[in-house]
């Protein structure tokens, strides 16, 4: 199963990187051809065309790039916020640590999508805002994960030994604790990729994510709604693309988790 996941993810990465060269009509990212709108799937347009006559296959391929770009940026940003907080809060006890984890709890107490919607709206809707909002709502998961790992490791013998020979706490945390927490962080990140792609698609669908004419999967499904039931292909293929990519990341995440630590608990979402 994990191998299938890895295959899907690698395939999507290749498609994302070479999107403009793979897509049969790369210019359909911004051009429209009203004369050939809403054509059903054919040899020329395997996924059909959309409401502006653009080749759907090309737009799905180009959409892969933005979906992966969004997911990678969001997960990286969430990591940059969450990992240091988790390390700092996990290393020492006291009011600072307590305070950091309470703040984390507050962010976990609101369902991500709702908070992302509120943020997305308040900061002027757009793909950039959606990414900020998603990063701001996903970091608590990294903070939690790293916090737990740091707590587990800080009492271990090798950490005591390092402290004994006078290593600076920051050195211990970055060079010794963090690498040991890396598998858990990696699993979190992989699952976070799938989760982010789904949530970003919802934001795009609701009109607070990517804006037209960007080739975006969620946005495409939203545009397709007005042309149902006639143009079934318009709504179907972008949604299938979302499912396939999320499936890939989820399967890969599951596989990594089993490999890293069979006892690792699945957390929320």
């Amino acid at each position, binding site marked *: *199963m994990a191998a299938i996941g890895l295959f899907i993810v690698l395939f999507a990465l290749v498609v994302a990187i070479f999107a403009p060269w793979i897509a049969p009509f790369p210019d359909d990212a911004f051009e429209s051809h009203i004369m050939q709108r809403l054509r059903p799937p054919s040899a020329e347009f395997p996924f059909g065309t959309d409401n502006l006559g653009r080749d759907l296959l090309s737009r799905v391929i180009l959409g892969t790039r933005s979906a992966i770009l969004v997911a990678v940026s969001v997960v990286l940003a969430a990591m940059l916020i969450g990992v240091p907080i988790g390390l700092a809060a996990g290393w020492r006890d006291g009011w600072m640590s307590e305070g950091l984890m*309470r*703040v984390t*709890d*507050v962010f*976990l*107490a*609101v*369902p*991500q*999508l*709702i*908070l992302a*919607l*509120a*943020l*997305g*709206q*308040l*900061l002027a*809707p757009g793909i950039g805002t959606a990414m900020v909002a998603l990063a701001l709502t996903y970091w608590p998961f990294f903070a939690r994960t790293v916090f737990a790992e740091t707590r587990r490791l800080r009492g271990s013998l090798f950490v005591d030994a390092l402290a004994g020979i006078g290593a600076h706490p920051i050195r211990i945390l970055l060079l010794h604790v963090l690498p040991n927490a890396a598998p858990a962080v990696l699993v979190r990140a992989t699952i976070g990729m*799938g989760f982010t792609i*789904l949530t970003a*698609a*919802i934001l795009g*669908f*609701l*009109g*607070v994510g990517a804006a037209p004419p960007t080739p975006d999967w*969620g946005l495409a*499904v939203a545009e*397709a*709604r007005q042309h*149902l*039931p006639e143009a*079934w292909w318009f*709504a*179907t293929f*972008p*949604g299938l693309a*979302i*499912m*396939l990519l*999320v*499936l890939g990341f*989820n*399967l890969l995440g*599951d596989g990594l988790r089993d490999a890293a630590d069979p006892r690792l608990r*699945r957390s*929320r*979402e």
Partner: protein
Amino acid sequence: MALYILRRIALALPALFGLILVTFILSRVVPGDPAATLAGDAATPAQIADIRARYGLDKPLLEQAFVHVRQVLSGDLGNSVFSGRPVSEEILQRLPATLELTFVALFFATIIGVVLGLIAALDHNGPIDHLVRIVSVGGLAVASFWLAIMLQLQFSMEWDILPLRGRMDVALGLPPRITGFLLIDSLAAGRFDMFVDALRHLVLPAVTLALPGLATIARFTRSGVLEALQKDYVLYARAAGYGRVRLAAIYVLRNAVTVTVTQVGLLFGALISGAVAIEAVFDWPGLGTYAVQAILSADYKALLAVTLVVGVVYAVVNVLVDVAQALIDPRVAEQIS
């Protein structure tokens, strides 16, 4: 036990307090000048100043925060920038629709999920097990809004056997509002036709909403049952000659279900989030469509209030889940206190 419940409620309070503060910060810092927003585009500077004074926006930020917390605690969430009506009123009006949908979805997800998980575990590595695994992996990868549209396309547009949108056929009207839950209100009014119609309207949105939950529950039940099957007391019960069904129902399921209960609670938050997109697809008159409308009309008051209400519902559900878990497995309560 009572002590545990109190303790658990006390633990939830700081998070709720923080949530109120976060919504305050969002409402004051992010959208520029709230007084200008409230006054509208055509307002003169004098009108803006007037509004600023009336809403206390000229006071120091800390004092404003204090006032905000007091207002929220007394149930005052402010007025909608769009309609001018109190947001709390509008939300109360719509909350039952979302809760009804969520509860039905949760019910469906739990029953089917537990049964699927149990069957899969008993058929470990058999064909049913693989089938359930595919369903549960796929269920978590589907975009809810897309699935909703696909189901509409098939069941409402193509076959025309289920309604496309809404909670109830317009021709039927609505039963007198008692709880706001149409399934309950229609029965209370003795209108069985309304009950059936409400149920028919619930099928597609509830199934869509339930799928990710169903997948998670099936998965956790499966692993819980597999783990429980390894336990000595199950081995003993098997040695004593109990049949498989009895073994599963009495000895295994109760022990496997503890983990599942936690998941149900965690899912509730995800369900509410999923409801936003699904409500938008089915024109379901709940909190989700309210939030989407608030986005379209740039009604930040309404949006923040929804954030707050959903956060509170989420916190309450999590307390309930922890209590339920302690009731099923008393060791949980002991561990914490």
